[in-house]
């Protein structure tokens, strides 16, 4: 059964303030992902990999087509749903690991990481146990947990971001170059965490520039072509 079913999705950016220039980025993208499967979006830069991934998270809009997602209460089309419903789907069904961490400046690493699971109303002891595990596995020393991540190095921030995004065991996981600024040891940790997510039945869609990681994790490639 598909957890994600993308049907003929197209998108064109219209830059109203630059003379109405039209930039077609995606044309009729279609693919499915089943539970436990990892599909890697493939293609040269500018073919809309990142745009497509963002559409699966409701961050970008689609002009046409359907993005069907299996949620606990049935199949929903992300292209057509109310934003309020999308918030719930982000809380419970779809997780996203981006390359950048975006948080309120003063909030501690610990609270940043715990938040997604707390938002689901999980018991604080379960939240703390899971956060401790992830932070330790990602080699973030305990001395950093009480500090706000704003002053951390790029690699440290990236690992805080990964810990946060993996706190909830989402049925669907979207990954946008999750290892971009990590060293070899931490890349290995992240690869294992993704494999574990797949083993528990998550449908994974990712963009990986690292060839080793890509061949290790991908069950299939979905090749994108220029829409222009």
């Amino acid at each position, binding site marked *: 059964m598909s957890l994600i079913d993308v049907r003929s999705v197209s998108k064109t*950016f219209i*830059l*109203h*303030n630059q003379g109405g220039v039209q930039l077609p980025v995606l044309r009729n993208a279609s693919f499915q992902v089943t539970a436990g499967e990892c599909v890697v979006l493939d293609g040269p830069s500018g073919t809309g990999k990142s745009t497509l991934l*963002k559409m699966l998270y*409701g*961050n*970008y*809009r689609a002009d046409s087509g359907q993005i069907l997602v299996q949620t606990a209460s049935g199949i929903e089309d992300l292209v057509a749903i109310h*934003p*309020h419903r*999308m*918030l719930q789907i982000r809380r419970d069904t779809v997780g996203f690991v981006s390359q950048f961490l*975006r948080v*309120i*400046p*003063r*909030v501690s690493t610990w609270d940043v990481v715990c938040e997604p699971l*707390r*938002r689901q109303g999980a018991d604080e002891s379960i939240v703390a146990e899971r956060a401790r595990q992830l932070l330790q596995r990602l080699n973030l020393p305990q001395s950093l947990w009480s500090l706000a991540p704003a002053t951390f190095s790029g690699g440290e921030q990236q690992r805080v971001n990964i810990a946060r995004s993996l706190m909830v065991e989402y049925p669907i996981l979207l990954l946008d170059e999750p290892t971009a600024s990590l060293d070899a040891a931490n890349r290995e940790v992240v690869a294992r965490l993704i494999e574990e997510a797949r083993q528990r039945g998550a449908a994974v869609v990712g963009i990986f520039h690292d060839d080793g990681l890509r061949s290790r994790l991908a069950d299939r490639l979905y090749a994108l072509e220029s829409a222009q």
Partner: protein
Amino acid sequence: MVEPILSARGLTREYAPEQGCLEVDLDVWPGEVVGIVGESGSGKSTLLRLLSGQERPDAGTLSFTDRAGRQHDLVRVSESAIRQLQRTAFGIVHQNPRDGLRLRISAGGNIGERLMGVGARHYGDIRAQAVHWLSHVEIDPARIDDLPRYFSGGMQQRLQIARNLVTNPGLVFMDEPTGGLDVSVQARLLDTLKRLVHDLGISVVIVTHDMGVARLLADRLLVMRFGRVIETGLTDQVLDDPQAAYTQQLVASILQVS
């Protein structure tokens, strides 16, 4: 499926052509923060005043469901019933804390006054609540007997928030709550607000012209221009993939600080 606690359809208050607030539809669900953005004169403050019953619409419907599940028709309800809701079920945080505080009574008195408005009479209980709420908004409880006129702008704004939250409102309206504050004070206030919203399960409608504040605080956004809502969506979607020409212009004008 959970129902919205506030629901507006066709809400209109027109002062002059394209001025005021025209045919606005809006739903607010429990626990969510809805941001209203736009330039000055776009009608966002008028919309906030209509939603919070500070002003009556010329047309449209507006219904509110309180924490006890009672529905209120905010267009037809009496003045006294609106004031009762504003004292208990709503919080209204003004841009200028001087509009929402009484500067000549103590910080504790500012909080206690609202509690007494809903029937609290026991001095010890009221004072204990005031201490509790001062620490909740990160004001040293030792300042409980000080007059807020001697507080900094950031502290006054925190006190105004405490005064509003003490009656456990389901819905809080905020008009540019970080408007007059330094950037570092703003960050701290935003952090406090975000925590309170989550811990207390309140819904917030916040008007701001600051896209940074909107990004950090709001779950969803409405973009207003000439009195109308021209675009809505998830906050990150509106800011990262704006559709309307005006929204694109608004987003492009944000200074990229980080």
